[in-house]
């Protein structure tokens, strides 16, 4: 077992990925790392491959070549089921928008990853209490847990998504443009809340955006173009 504090949260080496299809988008990443507890902002143009990179890190898609390590574990060496399990256990995911199952209650949405991650569920302890605590910490009105998630405003839904990413304190939070659907004031509030919680859990954050103004609040800012080369190959 690698020492948790020494191994980086994420490490990509010599990764090549190509989307199947006639004009397959290819992404080539020689090296990229996120240290434990580090908060990294990844900037890039639309269509530059940011989401593709996050999908690789989450193990939803698999690199054609090279190694993707999450918490020291090589995703390529694991089977599909084990990758899904690792994602559930280790990574909290926040999307740009439409993060939630609108028909499910807030509590069910927040607890959803625990359903696939027994260890994370154990870490979460009393899930119900955790949900209440997270909702309160993220400034959601009291008693929201039982309401259907679809009822809330976009900003509130994004905060529910943060609670879901944070429950059971996964070592890595991956966020794909979580603030792009919020106005400037809501963006600031959202990031402040997110960072407060990260400090509490000690999780690393890899957040994608095309808004360079956010850079000041992060430990490190990376331009996607600096770490990957992308292109299109005719299949």
């Amino acid at each position, binding site marked *: 077992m690698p020492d948790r504090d020494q191994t980086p949260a994420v490490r990509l080496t010599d990764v090549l990925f190509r989307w199947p299809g006639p004009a397959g988008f290819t992404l080539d990443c020689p090296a990229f790392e996120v240290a434990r507890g580090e908060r990294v902002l990844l900037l890039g143009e639309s269509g530059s491959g940011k989401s593709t990179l*996050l999908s690789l890190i989450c193990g*939803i898609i698999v690199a054609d070549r090279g190694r993707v390590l999450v918490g020291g574990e090589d995703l390529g060496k694991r089977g*599909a089921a084990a990758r899904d399990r690792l994602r559930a256990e280790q990574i909290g995911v926040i*999307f740009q928008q*439409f993060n939630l*199952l609108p*028909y499910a209650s807030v509590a069910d949405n927040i607890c*959803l990853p625990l359903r696939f991650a027994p260890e994370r569920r154990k870490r979460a302890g009393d899930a119900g209490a955790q949900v209440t605590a997270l909702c309160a910490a993220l400034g959601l009105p009291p008693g929201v847990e039982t309401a*259907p998630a679809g009822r809330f405003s976009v900003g509130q839904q994004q905060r529910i998504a943060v609670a879901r990413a944070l429950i059971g304190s996964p070592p890595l939070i991956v966020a*794909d443009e979580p603030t792009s659907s919020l106005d400037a004031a809501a963006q600031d509030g959202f990031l402040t809340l997110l960072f407060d919680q990260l400090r509490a859990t000690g999780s690393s954050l890899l957040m994608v955006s095309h808004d360079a103004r956010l850079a000041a609040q992060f430990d490190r800012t990376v331009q996607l173009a600096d770490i990957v080369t992308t292109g299109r190959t005719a299949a």
Partner: protein
Amino acid sequence: MMLRLILGSLRARALTVGLTVLAIALSVALFLGVEKMRNGARASFADTISGTDLIVGARSGSVQLLLYSVFRIGNATNNLTWESYQEIAARPDVDWIVPISLGDSHRQFRVMGTTPAFFERYKYRGGRALELAEGHGLEDLYDAVIGADVARTLGYVTGDPIVVSHGIASFTDHADQPFRVAGVLAKTGTPVDRTVIVGLEAIEAIHVDWQSGGQRPGAPTPQDVIRQMDLEPKAITAALVGVESRLRIFGLQRWINTYPDEPLLAILPGVALQELWQIVGIAETALIGVSAMVVITALIGMMAMIFSSLGERRREMAIWRAMGASPSVILGLLVVEAVVMAALGAAIGGALLYGGLAIARPWIDASYGIWLPLGWPDARELWMLGAVIGAAALASLLPALRAYRLSLADGMTVRI
């Protein structure tokens, strides 16, 4: 929690899901209903006659003889002469014999002439005897005993007069010789309920002034003259026979079937019923086939509904995937969803059928003489419901597999 989420997802699409479930429910109700009618018809047919070893009539088809003599369906093509009847009655193997004379009617009901022995010998539903609900049996020449449905439909009580019409569905009445309701039989669930029973001599009496189908011109013979006449019939329609020993049934049957003076036919009611089932069986199979096709159509509708929902639900699938659900979980979700819809449809369909039956049962009984039992679904019905749900699971596999592949290809972001 998973089931709760599935139910929530279904509820969120209440309209399309509701219509799909409704289609399944109606098809299931039809499917079960056909099966119930089939069993009900068989049971009530089989319950109609028991304790009679042979039915004798003029030679025709055995099913035809059974139908007109017991079920009052169709007509006899020929009669059985009184001489033949008496010769059969005199056979040593014959324990008892009851003549039946059909051919006249009262309103929509058939009139049957017979002897008082009929009330003793006719048995139904495993040996049950006829019982009078009201009044007494045939005593006077112009006494009539009516079945329960006749009494209920026409509102007759004992003492009411009855005018018998000549033939079936005719407008000539035997108005000069009215009968009187002497008794009303208790409900039996057999064609007896829809029969007006009179004495064999009475049939003879009302036809005194009739010759080869036409009424003799002139004044009708007065009733007191008729009462003095010899009213022995010249012919009857059929006879029910009980045999001394079961072993002798076939011997007697052969003797009757080879009777030299007149072409006769003796049948065993059970065997003729079997023959009837064979004929009806083809239609039954076709009916069941059609209703099964209706179920399949409903399930294909469900399949189409799931397919078309996949597009708008790719986002949802991506969320499940990002939370750590494997593609097989996605597949399972869709299959369970289909099973829930089918189970709901089956339950509602069953409820519709039973509710409908509870309401329509008296009407079905009145118009077809089939009393459908309303117990809990039996093993066969449960099996059919299970088959519907299983078929739904199978049908959902196709869209579920597509969702499986989509969720693998989509990655974390859904491009629409």
